[in-house]
């Protein structure tokens, strides 16, 4: 029986990730929090107890919840208080982001891929996604920010766990003057989007995060998460146009015509979206502390 294109890519991703040795599992603490939150009888105090066992994580969560990103007038001093005010899912998102920044802390010698610029691009994409979401009255801005923040995580996986191949990708970006996804296809036969989605699947994260990560260059394939993927697709392109951070190349992908029509925005919205994204970036810079 003939394989369809999706199966072929999946097979290439499988072969690619088979070469990755020792890819980390999702930390037990994050797995525990995921399971606890699924249980409707879990109390904020119980989740707070798990988070509070990690002093470094506790201080990061408190710093984010007290930052201008949320803009509460009064100081929040305990994780329990933070959960009561922001809810389980928001705290889970903050913990997940912090965990991913920690799991993929650079342990190999720096190559040509600038991680600080990469995380700035990622934070910028999350900020742009929020700005677009506000314009569209999207109900879950938090979900947009996290999906934007983590959409390119596959690049970090490759940089950390197959540095020689990823160096070849970056070298190809320069020699061919192309998009990083094109260089990845040329060198590896699959892209950071496939690798990131595979990781999130392995970590049993939400379907929305998996499909957005997989389809941020082709949101029409995201099924029931198409709208979320369309916002991240546009946010990724807007933040490139604003030249904030860098995801590894100096070209800009085209906005999908289908996504553009589906979102219902106008070309005259770009100026305001840039201004609003800039404001969101200022509020979100606290996430840069995670890379310390």
């Amino acid at each position, binding site marked *: 029986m003939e394989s369809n294109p999706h199966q072929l890519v999946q097979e290439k991703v499988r072969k690619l990730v088979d070469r990755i040795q020792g890819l980390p599992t999702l930390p037990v603490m994050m797995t525990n929090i995921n399971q606890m939150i699924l249980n409707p009888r879990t109390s904020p105090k119980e989740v707070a107890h798990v988070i509070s066992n990690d002093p470094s994580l506790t201080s990061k969560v408190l710093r984010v919840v007290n930052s201008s990103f949320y803009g509460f007038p009064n100081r929040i001093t305990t994780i329990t208080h933070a959960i009561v005010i922001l809810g389980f899912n928001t705290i889970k998102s903050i913990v997940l982001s912090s965990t991913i920044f920690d799991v993929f802390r650079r342990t190999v010698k720096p190559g040509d891929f600038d991680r600080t610029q990469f995380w700035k691009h990622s934070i910028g994409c999350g900020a742009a996604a929020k700005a677009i979401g506000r314009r569209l009255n999207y109900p879950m801005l938090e979900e947009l920010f996290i999906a934007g923040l983590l959409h390119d995580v596959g690049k970090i996986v490759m940089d950390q766990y197959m540095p020689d191949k990823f160096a070849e990708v970056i070298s190809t970006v320069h020699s061919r003057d192309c998009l990083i996804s094109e260089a990845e296809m040329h060198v590896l036969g699959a892209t950071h989007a496939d690798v990131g989605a595979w990781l999130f699947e392995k970590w049993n994260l939400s379907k929305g995060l998996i499909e957005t990560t997989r389809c941020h260059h082709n949101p029409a394939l995201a099924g029931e998460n198409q709208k979320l993927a369309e916002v991240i697709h546009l946010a990724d392109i807007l933040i490139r146009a604003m030249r904030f951070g860098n995801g590894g190349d100096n070209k800009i992908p085209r906005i999908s*015509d289908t996504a553009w029509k589906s979102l219902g925005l106008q070309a005259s919205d770009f100026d305001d979206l840039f201004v609003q994204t800039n404001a969101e970036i200022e509020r979100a810079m606290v996430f840069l502390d995670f890379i310390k």
Partner: protein
Amino acid sequence: MKLVKTDEARPGQKAARDVTDLRGNLLFKAGTDLTAELLASCKERTISHLFIEDSGGEAPASPVDVQARKDSLMKDIDHMFAGTENSPIMVSLKEASRRYLSAKVSK
């Protein structure tokens, strides 16, 4: 306002935003003149970046410098968008990008 690495901030520059430690405790407020002691304190607390006022401790860029930066930026934008000219929405995005970045350089 611009974001700089704490290592690159200099005494005499002005903080553009409140600076807090990892627990969210206020170290000093926006508008504070940075001193060597404050910068050392930030580094001690592993605060890697600071927002500083653009004009703090720096001579304003000359019009020639500003124009040179704009020209360089416009070239970069042309390069980034090369090959997207037949997409009307990308043409609009490119124009918006030029307006936004040009205004940013002028500030």
